[in-house]
């Protein structure tokens, strides 16, 4: 079953690249606007061989990790308080819904004014752009915990921080994962978006360099890399985590 899917996918991508190659050979669009897959690959090899590609990936991922960690820790704390303390939900809860609707890049001007053109600014954009997705997932998760779990835990002496760490968070984990997943997607958009606008390092920066140099194959190449990093993180980290949790929590 898995093998068949993989085969289908490989055939699909080979076909896609072939069509891309054919279209670029017809010269409907000039070559400096629509590169061939070969040129893009060439560019990838080139940026990889001088190390700038890996440095860019590393920089972006490091910023992502720091920003996302802040978002996850902060988001879970806020979400738990919202779910457990009604007054927090009634007040801060409504604000969270509003903040959640602000796109990450809309935080960029504020980040530049507060942090200057620094890593701090990018991490701020990444963290704040993804935190509220985690908050809302945590809130929903904690609200949906089987009340018997909490009662049994309280009965056995768990309260406060202990209850949160040993019961609320693990019990809400199936929801938390979808929050992390959403948070990571927002964070990745945030990092790239912020780098594009005000960084001197990272994949977003490389993308911007491609634009400034009118190097269309670099733009294509970096976009591909951004996508592939996304697929890799989704597939390697989140799929596995999800599978494990789903069977452990008896959801499958």
């Amino acid at each position, binding site marked *: 079953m898995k093998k068949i899917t993989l085969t289908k996918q490989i055939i699909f991508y080979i076909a896609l690249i072939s069509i891309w190659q054919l279209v670029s050979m017809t010269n409907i669009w000039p070559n400096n606007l629509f590169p061939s897959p070969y040129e893009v690959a060439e560019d990838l090899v080139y940026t990889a061989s001088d190390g700038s590609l890996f440095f860019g990936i590393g920089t972006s991922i490091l910023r992502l990790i720091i920003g996302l960690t802040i978002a996850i820790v902060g988001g879970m704390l806020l979400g738990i308080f919202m779910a457990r303390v009604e007054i927090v939900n009634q007040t801060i809860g409504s604000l969270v819904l509003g903040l959640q609707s602000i796109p990450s890049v809309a935080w960029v001007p504020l980040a530049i004014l507060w942090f200057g053109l620094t890593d701090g600014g990018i991490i701020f954009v990444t963290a704040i752009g993804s935190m509220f997705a985690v908050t809302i997932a945590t809130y929903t998760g904690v609200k949906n915990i089987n009340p018997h779990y909490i*009662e049994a835990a*309280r*009965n*056995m*002496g768990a309260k406060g921080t202990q209850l949160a760490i*040993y019961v609320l968070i693990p019990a809400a984990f199936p929801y938390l994962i979808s929050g992390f997943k959403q948070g990571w997607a927002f964070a990745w958009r945030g990092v790239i978006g912020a780098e594009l606008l005000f960084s001197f390092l990272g994949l977003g920066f490389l993308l911007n360099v491609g634009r400034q140099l009118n190097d269309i194959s670099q733009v294509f190449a970096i976009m591909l890399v951004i996508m592939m990093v996304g697929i890799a993180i989704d597939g390697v980290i989140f799929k596995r985590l999800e599978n494990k949790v789903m069977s*452990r*929590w*008896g959801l499958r």
Partner: protein
Amino acid sequence: MTKLEAKNIVKYFKHDSHRLTALGGVNLQIEDGEFVCLVGPSGCGKSTFLRIVAGLETPDEGEILFDGKPVTTTGPERIIVFQEGALFPWLKVQDNVEFGLKMAGIPKEERAQISKRYLDMMQLTKFADSYTYQLSTGMKQRVAIARALVMDPDVLLMDEPFAALDAQTRDLLLVEMQLIWEKTKKTILFVTHNVTEATVLGTKVAVFSNRPSTIKKIINVDYKRPRLVEDQNLFPLQQEILSELRPEVKKS
């Protein structure tokens, strides 16, 4: 010595259109080491009563005295076992059993020693490293009982713990439950809707009336143990309980 005393327990519930009086003044006195079975029509408030004794719910009138002192909150001396066990799916069997000990700050090695004793008693040793989704319903119920016994409570509160079991597994656990009670000398409050179960387990059976419920009748069961489900000698008592119960069920 009186272990537990319910004094005129009244409990209301707010529903949208009306106020429902679940418990209408329950009085019950339970001596240390007694095994009291509670039977009554569905919805009469047996679970509610047990939750009040556990301190998970507060009565609107009256009070529960534990060793002569009023109960105000949940405590490790009164441990409840829920019908579905409410085991934590994110923990292995052994960690489930040790949960209360961990919350009490008991070190790992000591916890393992204590839990081993109860895992052995419940014939769960082989499954110590399993997750709850890997267990049958009967095994889950054993884990839930082990998790409660580990707390070494004075009073064990059990809310239809065997309701979801098949007949063979239940009969087995009915015998085991009697042995555990004889071995541990716990005071047990056991809710069941099964009259046979009540006469097999209880030193006495308390029959609830329909809402607003009170305790209508208390029937002593003086008969040698271990008692079996098919024991003909318990038959007259079962008939007596049923004749108390039947008019209440009709009213509801």
